[in-house]
């Protein structure tokens, strides 16, 4: 069962007990939306066997003085998978500057942030020994109406493909362990 975000617990407790500024209210509402997205993702995560996978929820890191949020981090013996959750709806496209644009031609997300997040985690998630696990970042849009027009992007994972992707992670986690057992027996 997914643990609730600690900061959200405090905000829920203090809501209506203390005066909330507009900023506090906005932050509280954003955290509630994020909690819903993470619960939605958890429904898919619970469909796979997590015994060989470490799950870390809601990791926040500072990248160039901006606070970035990785909703879910899955660690297998083979790889790190970082998932950033979104609820974009409707048709979007990625412009040549790597910015996600909605059908009203408004910029909604800067995909260049993923590169900075990757670099940050590369310095943080350091493995002992010779093998350094690769880091894969995926943006998961948990909205059935989302569609990526024009050029597709391997950085995006749709709701339709999410179960298959998680199943592939489950299988790859098992395979690595089997190889390790085989090597130790020989």
């Amino acid at each position, binding site marked *: 069962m997914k643990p609730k975000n*600690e*900061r959200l*617990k*405090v905000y*829920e*407790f*203090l*809501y*209506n*007990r*203390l*005066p909330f500024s507009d900023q506090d209210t906005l932050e509280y509402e954003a955290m509630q939306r994020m909690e819903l997205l993470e619960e939605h993702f958890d429904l898919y995560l619970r469909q796979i066997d997590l015994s060989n996978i470490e799950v870390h929820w*809601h*990791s*926040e*890191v500072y990248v160039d003085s901006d606070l970035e949020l990785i909703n879910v981090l899955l660690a297998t013996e083979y790889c790190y998978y970082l998932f950033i959750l979104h609820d974009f709806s409707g048709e979007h496209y990625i412009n040549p500057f790597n910015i996600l644009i909605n059908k009203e031609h408004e910029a909604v997300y800067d995909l260049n942030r993923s590169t900075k997040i990757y670099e940050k985690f590369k310095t*943080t998630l350091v493995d002992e020994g010779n093998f350094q696990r690769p880091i894969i970042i995926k943006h998961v849009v948990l909205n059935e109406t989302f569609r990526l027009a024009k050029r597709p992007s391997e950085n995006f994972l749709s709701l339709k493909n999410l179960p298959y992707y998680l199943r592939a992670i489950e299988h790859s986690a098992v395979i690595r362990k089997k190889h390790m057992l085989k090597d130790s027996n020989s």
Partner: protein
Amino acid sequence: MTQPLQLPKIIHRNFKSGLKCDKCSSFNLEALSSSLAVCLDCRHIDNLERLLRHYFTMLTLCNRPLTLKKKEIHQEIGVQLTSYTLQKYINLLFSKKSKHAQYYTYKL
């Protein structure tokens, strides 16, 4: 990676105490029985023990002093309880230094 959560050390002067509804955040709760409470605004029903544990645990984490007399505990809860129900939860959730001591401390 994630920084440990910094909880507010001092409760603001305007802090509103008492149990509130988890669903609509209203303070308008009434005890339905010795184990259930109902929100009179949205009709959501919740377990009294869970509400009390959560409330006092969060208060403790916010460094609010929780050494109270029986009457103060009842006032703090903000929900009208029978003597029986109040004593039941005081025995469950609080402890005191001796049998005749007046002050109870929340058992975290």
